[in-house]
């Protein structure tokens, strides 16, 4: 009986850790391979479609009326596509990799709010690197990070990114397939950078 209780508790702890959003920052956007914003590195074989989720982590707004972001995926793959989340999305970003999207109704936010699903088909087992950036043009003056539109539908909110290249002062690689390099999840926002020097 005691062993059974310990096992149940242990499995509950594992489950809660596994479902935790890995990025602690508020209104931070990233690319993940699970819907809980927990997995940003994974192995993948060739010719099997990989879904990667663009997720807004820890939003402090009740809904998302629109969103904009850019992304790159560097590697050997074919058939890239994107599915935009939300009701009646209108995308004026101009093409895959740059998305400026308005919605007819808001997405109700959760701790890990899915904004879009990127899909591609690897051609081999070589690494594929994803980077999430701001859209072009960026709706936030002098910004290079993504943004969202908050209720009542005309409030622009700047977002951080889950990975930031401190040297280049721009978004860095935030997810990868078939590699386990260092993802810069620590310095994910300006507030996080400032906290290092307090």
């Amino acid at each position, binding site marked *: 009986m005691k062993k059974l209780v310990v096992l149940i508790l242990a499995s509950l702890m594992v489950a809660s850790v596994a479902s935790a959003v890995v990025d602690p920052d508020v209104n931070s956007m990233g690319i993940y391979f699970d819907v809980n914003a927990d997995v940003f590195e994974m192995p993948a074989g060739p010719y099997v479609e990989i879904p990667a989720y663009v997720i807004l982590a820890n939003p402090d707004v009740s809904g998302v*009326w*629109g*969103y*904009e972001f850019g992304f790159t995926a560097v590697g050997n793959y074919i058939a890239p596509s994107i599915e935009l989340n939300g009701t*009646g*999305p*209108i995308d*004026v970003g*101009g093409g895959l990799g740059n998305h*400026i*999207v*308005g*919605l*007819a*109704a808001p997405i109700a936010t959760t701790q890990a709010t899915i904004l879009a699903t990127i899909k591609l088909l690897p051609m081999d087992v070589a690494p594929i690197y994803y980077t999430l950036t701001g*859209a072009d*043009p960026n*709706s936030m*003056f*002098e910004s290079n990070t993504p*943004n969202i*539109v908050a209720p009542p*539908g*005309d*409030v*622009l909110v700047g977002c951080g990114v889950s990975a930031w290249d401190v040297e280049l002062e721009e978004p860095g690689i935030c997810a990868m397939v078939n590699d386990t390099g260092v993802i810069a999840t620590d310095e994910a926002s300006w507030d996080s950078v400032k906290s290092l020097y307090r």
Partner: protein
Amino acid sequence: MVLRKLVGIFAVTLIVCGASFATAGVPDLEESTATAADAGITFSLFCLPDAGGSAFGDAYLKGGTGGAGSVAVGADATITLTLLDGGAVAVSDFSFEDMWLQWVDESNLHVCEGGTVADGNTDDAGVTTWENGMNLGGNAECLAQVMINGAALTSDLGIPLHVNSADVDIDGDVDLLDVVQFSGDFVLTPAPYRSDFVSDGLMKVTDVSKMAVGVGASCP
């Protein structure tokens, strides 16, 4: 002699009283006034053909804060009309259908039938308002005049209430054709007013959100 003078005075009094009686209860375009809640600014109001656009209280300051980093600024464009007759007496229960807004230049505007009438009949004080969204497509960047039975108030030149709509092609509904034109406007600098729905002088994702909300709207 005295009798003649008395008759003359009586006749003049009759004429004056008769004239006053004739104008009683008839709106006077000079005595009546219309004012916006926020005075002294130029407004921009986002409209839809189905009145699902912004209420007058959710208008914007035309052009926002301006400059490269311009942001939208909210403003209250609620219009209050006080309807008086020639004797400066309130005209009550005047039909809302006989009071509407009309722009000096409506060449790029699509006004749905009855789309800009007042919110209700005048009350005992002769007051009515424009607060609710209007049924409009297209855009106008000029003064809006309050019309009483087809004649504009003469107490002032009009209210600087500019309007735009997700009905970019000015045909009374919002559909793919409007999205196409809006998408073309999105890359232009400066932002074309007809697509700058939050009126900050720039094309942003906030404008895209407004367009997305408007798709499918049409005149009643």
